[in-house]
């Protein structure tokens, strides 16, 4: 989901944010804006301040300094009605183990000013239909996490905050979660240690280090392209014509005599170029979001 225009009121606006536990700083001078519809990942090693930041955004932790506006309101507002526009999945989902999935989500929907139809919709959306009659206390970790996500979504919020939503999930559950998050047309801020998942869900990355925002990085679309270089044969038609006319590939010339084409066209492009008489000398996939993230954090997960 592409972010809305820059002129739109930001979904989240944070400035000079600080939080101290006793005299220890957990966050210092953090500031950023998130546009409506953006999917933002909070990254950083343990203790970097991700959870503290999410809790402040969710309005459950008071900042020591700075200002926060989220979904058009300040978390310090006395009137709690703004919370209807916010969904929050903390590290440990706030579940009532004694309730069935359906009863719990129906209850949360009512609590957040929504109705039974909203609960039915979120059960379907989060693929909880088969488990809706089960008590939450009897569910596996993955399904509990899914119910936790459902409670954050049930009232159809404008902003969704997720603290380690994929923690402890198996690959299939992680993929299902990713699919769900990718389909959401709302502002999402999530923290996760799973770089490969984060790279697929988020379009922007905020990196925290010892409570400071050290990097605010927007993912480019480089991952959709591959770079090619050929030793052009004088007798063969130019690569551009081969690629655009013969196979209709996306083609862009690069400065160094190389060119790039759409990643999905690479197999047919290579075949067409070789059949046309060109010698392929280089084929590179430029660094994508995951590559950037891995470079940033090394091999050790943040």
């Amino acid at each position, binding site marked *: 989901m592409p972010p809305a225009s820059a002129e739109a009121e930001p979904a989240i606006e944070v400035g000079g944010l600080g939080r101290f536990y006793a005299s220890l700083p957990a966050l210092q001078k953090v500031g950023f804006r998130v546009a409506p519809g953006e999917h933002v990942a909070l990254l950083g090693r343990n203790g970097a301040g991700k959870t503290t930041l999410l809790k402040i955004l969710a309005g459950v932790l008071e900042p020591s300094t700075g200002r926060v506006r989220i979904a058009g309101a300040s978390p310090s507002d006395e009137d709690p009605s703004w*919370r209807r526009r916010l969904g929050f999945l903390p590290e440990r989902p706030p579940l009532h183990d004694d309730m069935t999935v359906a009863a719990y989500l129906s*209850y949360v929907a009512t*609590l957040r000013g929504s109705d039974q139809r909203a609960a039915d919709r979120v059960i379907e959306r989060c693929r909880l239909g088969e488990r809706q009659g089960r008590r939450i206390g009897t569910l596996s970790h993955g399904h509990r996490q899914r119910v936790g996500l459902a409670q954050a979504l049930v009232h159809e919020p404008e902003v969704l905050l997720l603290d380690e939503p994929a923690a402890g999930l198996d690959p299939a559950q992680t993929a299902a979660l990713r699919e769900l998050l990718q389909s959401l047309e709302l502002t999402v801020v999530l923290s996760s240690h799973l770089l490969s998942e984060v790279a697929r869900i988020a379009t922007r990355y905020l990196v925290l280090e010892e409570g400071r925002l050290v990097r605010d990085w927007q993912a480019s679309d480089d991952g959709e392209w591959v770079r090619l270089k050929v030793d052009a044969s004088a007798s063969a038609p130019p690569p551009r014509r081969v690629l655009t006319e013969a196979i209709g590939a996306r083609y862009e010339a690069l400065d160094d005599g190389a060119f790039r084409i759409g990643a999905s066209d690479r197999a047919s492009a290579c075949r067409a170029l070789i059949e046309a008489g060109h010698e392929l000398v280089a084929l590179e996939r430029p660094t994508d979001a995951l590559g950037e993230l891995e470079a940033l954090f090394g091999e050790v997960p943040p």
Partner: protein
Amino acid sequence: MAARELGALRRTGALPALLGIVALVQGLHLLAFAVDERRTSARALAIYFHHGAYVMEAVGLVLALALVLMGRPAEMLWRTAPIRAHDRIGGRFVAGFAVLVLASLASVHLPAFILWSGHGSVGHLFAGSVGGLLAGSLGLSLGLAGTALFRRPLAGAVAAACVLGGLELMPMVADQVGAGWRSVLTEAAPVWAHNDGFRRGILDLSDAVFLLGLSYVGLVAATAGLREQRWAP
């Protein structure tokens, strides 16, 4: 919200267990203190409701603690929901009061037994039950206040028990001190004094209003405490 709290007590088995314990304790003190061939039915009922009110106060305290502890795993749900502190406290109080009503009904056969075998009045039974409910609601509201004002719910419940115990014990202290202090302590011993009429089968509206007012003060304190906890890490 009250329905959820009540449902949780039922689903976890806490409700039937509590009702059973209340009926057992009420039965035991009935046998131990109230039943005596030499006593009139009215006197036996008064003694039963006298001890029964203490039991209901304790049940109210325990309920407050149980409701708070049961809600803890989903604490974040409340804190991120568009509801105010008084909604939460109100929900817990209504759920707790409903349990107190059930507890009264679960043990109503005990004073009824005195009526059946003696010459007491139904009015006495009714007034005594109302007094028990009011005492229970006071324990409940003070328990909710204690658990909201303290970071550790158990410490809060203990503090509330001390306050309640202090209010109940004041008449005994008053008996031991000089006349000057006696009147002060007696006046400041509202729970015992204002529940005494109910125990003896007298329905006095001013007593009911006083005890309800005291419960309300507890609920206000609980709401204030919960509001303060909003930003707790």
